[in-house]
């Protein structure tokens, strides 16, 4: 009976394929159009700005008319030493933060994959830094830990009879990376934990029965299985961390050695420079870098995604 009814329902649509296809699409359209309007259109406008000398009129004493300048803004990028510095800072910040949070995240996930008293509570505590407002996380570290006035690290150094260290001003990059690692380790931990828990238990058990050592099992079975989860964590982490802004703004306000590309673009434009035209050109270069990372990310995502469909 149901088959017959389905048949009738199907036939009803066959006569009118166009409206059927649009009936399927209709629920999707509002979300799709919204996304295009708010994320893609401004980006197209940015590309246009990048070929002009647009400046904020209210911010300059002698307003000049906006005109088309061709690829001048792009040429200027390659001769700008500050931009090169920002690229290098971005690379270091992202690599250190992603690698360290992956290492800590994997170690924590291996611990949490075991059964012990208060397992759920430990997990809850560990994810908490990730939930904090990035601004608050940066402020906590700046004022409570690193500060030379009332920071705990400074008090500890004094207690040990050592001289104080101006953590943030002498090691701005390391200070910012510390906060990023502290916040992103729980994120990596959750991804690796999901990987560990998706391991087929019977294989591990038979390896155990066969007398394989714990480390051997980890290297031969667990690590290859985790590879894709590590990749996913690294790529998703890179995409977010490469855009880090809050921690830099709060901790150093973009001093030497801590200005990454997004912060530099910000300083060049609404953060004080108000040169929208040339800043747009920098932004477009950032987008090209991001697209390269994102292409890899999407590939990993889509392979995990196909497995899920098969399962």
């Amino acid at each position, binding site marked *: 009976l149901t088959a017959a009814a389905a048949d009738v329902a199907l036939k009803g649509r066959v006569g009118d394929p166009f409206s059927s296809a649009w009936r399927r699409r209709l629920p999707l359209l509002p979300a799709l159009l919204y996304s295009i309007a708010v994320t893609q259109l401004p980006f197209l406008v940015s590309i246009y700005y990048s070929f002009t000398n647009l400046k904020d009129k209210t911010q300059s004493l002698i307003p000049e008319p906006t005109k088309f300048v061709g690829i001048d803004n792009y040429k200027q990028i390659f001769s700008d030493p500050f931009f090169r510095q920002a690229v290098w800072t971005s690379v270091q910040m992202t690599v250190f933060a992603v690698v360290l949070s992956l290492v800590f995240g994997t170690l924590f996930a291996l611990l949490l994959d*075991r059964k012990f008293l208060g*397992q759920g509570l430990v997990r809850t505590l560990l994810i908490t830094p990730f939930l904090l407002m990035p*601004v*608050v996380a940066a402020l906590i570290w700046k004022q409570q830990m690193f500060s030379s006035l009332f920071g705990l690290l400074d008090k500890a150094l004094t207690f040990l009879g050592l001289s104080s260290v101006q953590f943030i001003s002498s090691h701005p990059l390391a200070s910012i990376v510390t906060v990023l690692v502290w916040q992103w380790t729980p994120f990596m931990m959750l991804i690796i934990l*999901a990987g560990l828990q998706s391991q087929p238990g019977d294989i591990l058990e038979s390896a155990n029965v066969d007398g394989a050592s714990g480390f051997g099992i980890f290297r031969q079975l667990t690590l290859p299985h985790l590879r894709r989860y590590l990749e996913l964590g690294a790529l998703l982490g890179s995409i977010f961390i490469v855009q880090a802004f809050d921690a830099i703004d709060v901790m150093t306000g973009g001093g030497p050695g801590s200005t990454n590309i997004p912060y530099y673009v910000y300083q060049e434009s609404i953060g004080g420079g108000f040169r929208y035209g040339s800043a747009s050109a920098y932004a477009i270069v950032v987008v090209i870098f991001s697209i390269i990372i994102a292409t890899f990310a999407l590939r990993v995502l889509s392979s995990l995604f196909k497995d899920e469909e098969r399962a």
Partner: protein
Amino acid sequence: VKRGTKLGVGERRSFTLGIGMLAWLVALIWIFPVGWTLLTSFKTEQDAAAQTLNQGLSFGRYHDIAQSTPGTLSLQTAFMNSLVVVLVSTLIVLVLALPAAYALAIRPVHKWRDVLFFFISTKFLPVVASIFPIYVYAEKWNLIGTRTILIILYVAINLPLAVWMTRSFFMEVPRELIEAAEIDGTSIINQLRSVILPIAAPGIAATALLCVIFAWNEYFYALQLNFASGSTMPQWVISNVSTRGNFLAKLSAASIVACLPVILAGWAAQKRMIRGLSMGALK
């Protein structure tokens, strides 16, 4: 083997105990800065600045931060701005994402995979790449300093995440139930309401909580577009840093007040959080 209950054959009890203690130690070290901030928030300013505890603990700083000084951003204003922006944007996200997830999971459109990946690719576009046009047009349309502009942008930030997450939860609704409803001629809206939503409700709640967390914590757009009356909680927390006099205890209290709502939301959503963070790739 049940998840998270692996106990290797021949593993000694003391080893398991050691793992547990190590895990607790790690968790306590990692959470220490938050715990210390919580403690500091109950201290007096003198104790906080000296990192001592001579004058006892009280709720005094929480009382202080609730007092508004004319001309500065008050907790009440920032909290209301955040609350309205977060709730309205999350509501709009769900209104847009649920039908979209239906069209991507239950009766998939042609090339649904491309559409899904389009949504996610918008997350990979750096925000700095589109901030100037947004700023220029927001200025043109008198949206600078309003809650409206933040609502518009936060919907765009959270929409991809919500589409991916709800799609992944919709995939788990048994096909037979939906087919039965379809044969009965139930409309899409009624199918969503009476068949799909009851089953996917916990997942949708987790999606909403994640959107709330991201919107509540957002600082870049809020700073660029809402430096005045429309300021939200992150800007209010920063406003508690003062260049004159001690402020550490008050700042700690402000940090706790600003983070508590989302910490609770995150704890509530933690079981399903991984699915949202991995864009639905992991469960």
